[in-house]
């Protein structure tokens, strides 16, 4: 576990969701009575079947969507969801790299700083630092189309890290990548997380990915979206290839898998 996590785990949660509900205008109940505390420094995976509201939760936390009911409280005492994501130092990584095709790699990573008024010269150090974190310093002048899928995702992560966020929200960031690239990026992400001690909420479909990465897995069920189980993954970091083949890893995968299947069966029983 990262140092930051150990230091702050006893304090108030970084963000606390209480009885959050979300009903879309077309009547879809995406979330119902969802409560969740995220401690500072945690690496939490949201695991659940398609349509269970994982993206919806993430968007509500980011301030991109509003909860219909319930409340969200931040460690600094502010109450969301109306609060500005900027105040909470949040960054978001989408499933697609979501880069501006007309801008170079540098331009894309510069964007968040530029929007706050930083000129190219002022932003240069931080942008290059962020690019170095993901190993792409050499590609600052390349355009997104010149990069592979994995490299684009790295740029997207660099853009998220350049603002030095406290909370990194990731919505299935590696789902579209091949397994080799995914493993590599998993390791890089864990490395960055351990070095900088930010908090991560990571949405995924993959049991294996969630076990490998997180120190806590929140399993969700669909119709309506809700938390069904909260599984702590008490395995030490750094985790590497040995962890992937270890008995502990298998055991956690089994637990998470069973929980996920139970959640899916529950949804089906309940609603035809």
């Amino acid at each position, binding site marked *: 576990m990262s140092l930051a996590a150990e230091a702050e785990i006893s304090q108030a949660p970084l963000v606390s969701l209480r009885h959050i509900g979300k009903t879309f205008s077309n009547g879809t109940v995406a979330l119902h009575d969802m409560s969740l505390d995220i401690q500072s420094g945690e690496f939490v995976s949201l695991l659940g079947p398609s349509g269970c509201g994982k993206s919806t939760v993430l968007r509500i936390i*980011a301030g*991109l969507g509003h909860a219909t009911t319930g409340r969200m409280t931040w460690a600094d005492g502010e109450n969301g969801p109306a609060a500005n994501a*900027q105040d909470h130092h949040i960054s978001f990584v989408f499933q697609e790299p979501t880069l501006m*095709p*007309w801008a170079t790699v540098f331009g894309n990573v510069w964007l968040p700083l530029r*929007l*706050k008024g930083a000129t190219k010269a002022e932003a240069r150090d931080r942008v290059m630092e962020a690019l170095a974190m993901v190993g792409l310093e050499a590609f600052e002048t390349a355009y997104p*189309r010149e990069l592979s899928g994995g490299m684009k995702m790295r740029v997207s992560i660099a853009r998220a890290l350049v603002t030095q966020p406290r909370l990194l929200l990731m919505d299935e960031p590696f789902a579209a990548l091949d397994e080799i690239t995914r493993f590599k990026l998993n390791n890089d992400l864990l490395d960055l997380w351990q070095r900088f001690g930010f908090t991560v909420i990571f949405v995924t479909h993959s049991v294996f990915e969630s076990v490998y990465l997180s120190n806590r897995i929140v399993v969700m069920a669909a119709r309506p979206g809700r938390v069904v189980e909260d599984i702590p993954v008490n395995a030490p970091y750094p985790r590497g290839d040995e962890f992937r083949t270890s008995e502990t890893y298998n055991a956690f995968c089994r637990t998470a898998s069973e929980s996920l299947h139970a959640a899916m069966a529950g949804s089906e029983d309940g609603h035809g």
Partner: protein
Amino acid sequence: MADLTTSGPAPNLETASQAVADEKELARAARARRDRIARWVLPVLTMVLTILGWEYLVVANEIPHYILPRPSLVLETLVKDWPILSAALLVTLKITFGALAIAVVGGVGLAILFSMSKWVEMSFYPYAIILQVTPIIVIAPLIFIYVDSKIAGLLICAWIVAFFPILSNTTLGLNSADHNLRNLMELYGASERQTLWHLKLPSALPFFLGGLKIAGGLSLIGAIVAEFVAGTGGVGSGLAFRILEASYRLNIPRMFAAIILISFTGILIFAAMSLLSHLLLRKWHESALKREN
């Protein structure tokens, strides 16, 4: 890799298939080269043959030049009348580019306004459509009644024809910015102006350029049509007036010469817009990229 080379026949198979692939590749390259050459040679050849046939037809049948002039006579006229025609061309060009410039400013400006305010869009978009679907030829006479300056009248007519493709394309472009990037802008607390500048305008650029290509040709057509309606010439009259004048005097060769000038102008405008579009988009947009696979 290693076990591929050690397992008996695999390398041979590989070389064989490599050779076949190479042959195919070569054939494909040859075909591509042939196509590239044909793309230029065939139209030129068609044109040369048509002109020669036309010349022969006129000479052989002794068709009088006030009915159908031979191409060589048209060329002579183009040279002989160049002082008159070039002056007229200049006038038409001024109207065309003046109208195009206003269409760009007006079209993009309105599109931005529309994208910022739904109310403005609801209020004015229908009128933009009405302007577009009503033939300019029936509006033009009215405009020349209400507007004293002939130049201003011509500009207005050409503008009406040219601005709609820019407005509608740019509006579409501004609205088609990637929604995740929009979310990102929101997340980073971008102001509306920043979102416009950093996201919406670049997203709209390819659409705008598509509109510009159409508008370039249309502003020429608008200028010509308006001149036809405006009629009465004198000093400062454009190509359309010269065509009308020549037709009254049965100066058919000059009509042909003027028409050729208009066509060339249209082609040049289109080529210039295509080049501009290519230069602005070649670094990033699919439409302008040279794919290596």
